[in-house]
């Protein structure tokens, strides 16, 4: 009797959960795709991709995330390698420094950026590359640190050096293949962050995907809602890719796009 009660309670909770999380997705999909005559149409999606402003903003966001990935690879990977191989005593300090962006809300970081950067930096949307690499640091650091921690990198490096491999061989044949999951997780994390980040872009008045989407909401509701659902699904797929890559680190992942 008791187990039946607790079972039905669990079922009820699950049902409420499913309703709360899936009903808005369903309802907004209908909202976006219902045509005037009561049927359904994919016209809003076509209109979205024919809209020059929207496609341009999407391309800009993708380019920014590409550069942010490059910057992170060049700057963070050596640093994490360094604290794992050369100076393990500095690992805690690096962790602290990389988690700092979590303490400063993005809107505050954005205001500080606006009032501290010289105008030649602020005059291009690609200055966001630096801002986003910093904003993603807490998450990219964790992904890369976990990847380095899961292998005995020091022994690998020593072995390859004993066998006479040079620096490039060490980087491309030893280090990169061994931290692949961490690298992919970082790339996806940055992509998801850049496609959703709003505070910086709106303060600096750049037309990235989220800011253009926000404006589109005022002119064409079904296009905006259709794009919102597409971008949510896109981000969900990206996040799923990350959690399949990094099973153990699923619980730590939260992003600064809210």
């Amino acid at each position, binding site marked *: 009797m008791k187990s039946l009660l607790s079972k039905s309670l669990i079922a009820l909770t699950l049902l409420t959960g499913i309703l*709360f999380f899936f009903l808005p997705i369903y309802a907004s999909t209908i909202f976006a795709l219902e045509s005037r005559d009561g049927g359904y149409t994919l016209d809003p999606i076509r209109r979205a991709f024919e809209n020059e402003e929207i496609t341009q903003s999407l391309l800009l966001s993708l380019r920014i995330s590409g550069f942010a990935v490059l910057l992170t690879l060049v700057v963070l990977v050596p640093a994490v390698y360094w604290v794992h191989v050369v100076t393990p005593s500095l690992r805690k300090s690096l962790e602290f420094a990389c988690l700092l962006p979590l303490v400063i809300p993005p809107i505050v970081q954005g205001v500080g950026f606006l009032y501290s950067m010289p105008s030649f930096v602020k005059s291009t949307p690609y200055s966001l590359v630096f801002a986003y690499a*910093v904003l993603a640091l807490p998450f990219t650091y964790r992904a890369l640190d976990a990847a380095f921690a899961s292998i005995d990198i020091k022994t690998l490096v020593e072995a390859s050096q004993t066998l006479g491999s040079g620096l490039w061989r060490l980087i491309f044949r030893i280090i990169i293949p061994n931290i692949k999951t961490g690298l992919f997780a970082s790339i996806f994390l940055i992509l998801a962050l850049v496609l959703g980040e709003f505070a910086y872009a709106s303060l600096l008045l750049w037309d990235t995907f989220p800011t253009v989407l926000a404006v589109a909401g005022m002119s064409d509701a079904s296009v905006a809602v259709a794009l*919102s659902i597409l971008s949510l699904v896109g981000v969900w797929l990206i996040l799923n890719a990350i959690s399949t890559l990094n099973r153990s680190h699923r619980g730590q*992942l939260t992003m600064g796009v809210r």
Partner: protein
Amino acid sequence: MMQRTGRYLGLMPIGVLLIVFLGLPIIAILRFSLQDAKGGFTLTNFRTAMTGVYLDGILLSINLSLLSALISVVVGLLFAFGVARSRIKLLKNLVSTAAGVFANTGGVPLAFMFIASLGTYGMLTVWLRQVGIDVYGGDWTLYSFSGLLIVYLYFQVPLMILVSLPMIEGIKVEWREASQTLGSSSGYFLRRVIVPVLAPQVLATYLLLFTNSFAAYATAAALTSGSIALVPVQIASLIASNVQVDGANIAMALGVCMVAIVAIAMSIYISLERKVAKWRS
């Protein structure tokens, strides 16, 4: 000397990135928050930030975050208990994947999804009206404090589930068996084992959820277009409009207040997490 610089060589690029793109902005905020419009030293900005509409904004942000964190902790914990106790492994995996995904949802798309569902002309609003429930019959709107609260729960509750699943799985079956063997009731076990074990972790997660909602900007901005004056919304509008000469300075002071609040919450969070980690090992 050479040796000293060599020790930090690999950390220099990231050091430069952090100093230029995080350090300089923080210094700018501190500096401008202590200046008047002409550049002279003053504490007026903080006095302004702590009175009137700005104080209301800070309190509103704190209220929203406390409340959304509290609801999420209770609901998320119940949900996680239900799932963790079920024997179906697939269910557990599905729930934790879904929670991981929804916990990271937010911003403009989330706001638009809710406007299309529960807004004045939203689909759910229409459907509910067809069955005789008019959500807009009273004073309620989606673009209000409670509307924003509902939207925030969409990412707050999953975050709680995500964090509490491993927490609950950490409660060993052996503990229950041991306490039963020693003759304790399940109520006693709950009070004397589960609650003391989970309490510090739940409190830590509560603070995490608080910060998560306190720092959020995009969702509120897109949903209410500035009509709910949370601190981040006020900061953004002070910067965007040039109505007040010292508007930017007040915005910086508000920013410093935000950072202080987040820093307090985070440092308690970290010390609690440390305690839990030490206790576990």
